[in-house]
Structures are given as C-alpha cells and as structure tokens.
C-alpha cells in the first residue's frame, strides 16, 4: 500500500517537469503555463469560493439528512437481525426444555410401567404359590387318607392271616393225622411260629 502510494506520487511529481516544458511552448492556446497555476485568473479564485459553497452544502446534506438516514437503516437492520437471533435462541431453549420434559415424561412412564409389571408378576407368583399350597394340602390330605386305608387294609389282611394259617394248618394236620385235632393247640403253634418270624 505505502509503496504503491509512493510510486504514484513519484509518477505524478515526475510528470510535472514535462508539463512545465510543454507549457512553455510558444503558440499555446492559454495565456501560458498550466491553467491551474494561473492564480491571476479570477476564475481560479472564483472556483475555490464556489467549491466551499458546494462542499458546504454537501457536508450539510450528508451530516443533517443522508448519513443519519443510512445509520438509521443500518441500526434497524442490526436490531432486526439481533431480534431474530434472540427469538431463534429463545425458540431453541424452549425446544430443548420441551425435549427434556418429553424425556423426563418418557422415563417416568417407563418406570411406572416397569413397576406395574413387577407388581403384577409378584401378584401372579403369590397367587400361584397360594394355589399350589392349597393343592398341596389337599393332595397330602388325600395321600394321608389313602395311606390310612392302605394301612387299615394291610392290618385287616394281616389279622386274617392268622385265621387262614390256622385253617390251613388244621386242614393239613387233619389230612395227615385224621380227625380229632385240638384246634386250640394248632392255633398256639401258628401263633408261636408267627411270633418267631416277627409278624406276631
């Protein structure tokens, strides 16, 4: 930047001597020299006076009307953009909050559902256990009754065993030895034999 400025200055200033040379040529249209350096010409001075008037008007119009108008437009745009950004930010925050709410509600519902499932399954297990207990009790009662009947049957069977053994022994003895066998003696012998076997 600085370098190009310097080179431009050199270029501009370097052209001056050649201008002066050209200006010095005879037969030139103007009164001689560069018109810009002809300060005796009242047009040169009038030009500056008018310039101050025109530049003053320009400054006044810019400072009073144009620049505040542009500044207002730029400020309005900045405010609009800031407002929109703020609204977008707020919307994002509320969306985040809604998402968090949603997740909390989902988690709560899931926990409730799992608790309900656990309760129901415990209930079912308890019911099943109670039913099984009742059934078990009934079954064991039936088993007990059946065992009683079996024991009674066996006892009866065992009770009639002695009579059968005595009858059988009496029949055998009467066949072998003929009639007139003392039934009481046989009965004793059977009793002692049974006692010897441990079945008494």
């Amino acid at each position: 930047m600085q370098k190009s400025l310097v080179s431009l200055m050199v270029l501009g200033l370097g052209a001056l001597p050649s201008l002066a040379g050209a200006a010095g040529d005879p037969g030139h249209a103007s009164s001689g020299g560069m018109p810009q350096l002809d300060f005796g010409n009242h047009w040169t001075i009038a030009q500056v006076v008018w310039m101050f008037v025109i530049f003053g008007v320009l400054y006044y119009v810019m400072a009073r009307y144009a620049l505040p108008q542009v500044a207002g437009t730029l400020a309005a745009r900045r405010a609009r953009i800031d407002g929109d950004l703020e609204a977008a930010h707020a919307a994002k925050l509320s969306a985040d909050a809604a998402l968090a709410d949603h997740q909390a509600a989902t988690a709560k519902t899931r926990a409730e559902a799992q608790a309900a499932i656990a309760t129901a399954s415990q209930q079912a297990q308890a019911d099943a256990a109670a039913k099984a207990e009742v059934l078990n009790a009934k079954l064991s009662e039936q088993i007990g009754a059946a065992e009683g009947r079996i024991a009674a049957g066996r006892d009866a069977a065992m009770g009639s065993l002695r009579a059968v053994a005595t009858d059988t022994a009496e029949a055998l003895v009467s066949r072998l030895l003929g009639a007139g066998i003392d039934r009481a003696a046989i009965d004793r012998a059977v009793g002692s034999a049974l006692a010897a076997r441990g079945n008494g």
Partner: protein
Amino acid sequence: MAAEGQAIDALSQFALKPFLGGLGESVRLSQSNGHMLIALGLIAALMMWGTARRAIVPGRVQALAETAYDFVHDLVVGQVGEEGAKYFPLVFSLFMFILVGNLLGMLPYAFTFTSHIAVTFALAMLVFLVVTVIALSIHGTHFFSYFFPEGAPKLLAPLIIPIEIISYLSRPVSLAVRLFANMVAGHVMLKVFATFVVMIGGAAGIFGIFGAALPLAVNVALIGFELLVAFLQAYVFAILTCIYLHDAVHLH
C-alpha cells in the same frame, strides 16, 4: 486538437470556462464548479434517494450507499477510534466529493476539478484547519507538546521542534499536491496518447492505422489504471485526514 509538427496540447483541457455560457459568466461559475454541482447531485441522490426506502434487504443502489457508508465509517472509527465518529460526516463528504470528482473526470468531455491545485489545496487547508482547531479545542496549549515527542533528549530540541513544525505545516501541501499531481499526470498522459492515436492514424494510411493501435492500447490500459488512481487518491486523502484527526484527538 494538435496537428502534426505542433506541440501536443495536453494542458488546455484544464482551462476554466464559464458553465452554461452567460449564466455561469455572470456569477463566475466555471465548468469546474459545474462538475462539483453534478458530483453534489450524484452523491446526494445516492445517499438520500438511494436509501429512502430504508429496506431491510437493500437493493443495488441502497447496497452501494451502505457500502460507501460502512467503508468510510470503518476507516474513521478504525483510525481515530469511537470518539472519531463525530468527524465521520466530514471525512465521508471529502471522500465522496473527491472520489466522484475523480470518476466524473474519466468521462469524455468531462472536467476533472481535482486536477486544480487551487481546489485540492483548499480542501487540504480545510482539513488542516479543522484538525488544528480540533486539537486546540481538545488539548488547549498542551497541543504544542505535539511538536516535541516525550522522552526525546532535551539537547535535540532545537533540531526536533523545527522539524516537527515543518512536517506539520507541510501536511496540507503534500495532501494537495499528491491529489493534484496524480490527476494531472493521468489526464495529461491520456491526452498525449490520444493525440498519438490521431497523429499516427492520420499520418501513414494503412500502416498508420496499425501503428495507432499501440497508443490506443496504452490508453485503454491507462483508463483502467486511472480508475484505480481515482479511487486510490480519494482513499488516500480520506485516510490521511483520519490519521491527522487521530493525532489531533490523541496527540501521538
């Protein structure tokens, strides 16, 4: 314009003439001032009617006006600081006045009012006086410490103070001459090469037409270069004004 064998008339383009004939004659309004009025009208139209709709999404003209506004505003605030914002209208007016003046001068038949040293020097003196008044009103007599940098050896004061004063006083001169010389040099070169085109083209028949293509090509390149210079010189004038304002507000 310039016939063969005569000097190339590169300077008559800078001569002042009455604007609109007798009307301009009667109030001493030259065509230079006429172009200033056109520049004033163009800038006012751009900045007033171009932004009158105050659209949130700007159109082309409003975007141009806002770009110019932002460009100069950033320049002023960047160089001077936030407290420089109140000098923004001055810098903006200067920048746009010089820029539009330079660009208007690129149109055929148009006059370049920034090619007059009286105009550029008047603008430079305006900057110089405004800057000095601002510096004095902010710092009072303390302002004169500007001419002797703090911490410099006292022994060198007789050397440093005159140098600083001369450098301060030469500001308007360099500001004025830089703009003036750049615009004059550019327009003289354009005129010289344009004259070459006519001279060579008229001189040697079919060969002359081919020969004239060279200065014509130079002129095409020069016009591009001059458009750059037109912008650059307005920018330089504005940024130097900002630097001077910075010195006036902050004293170094």
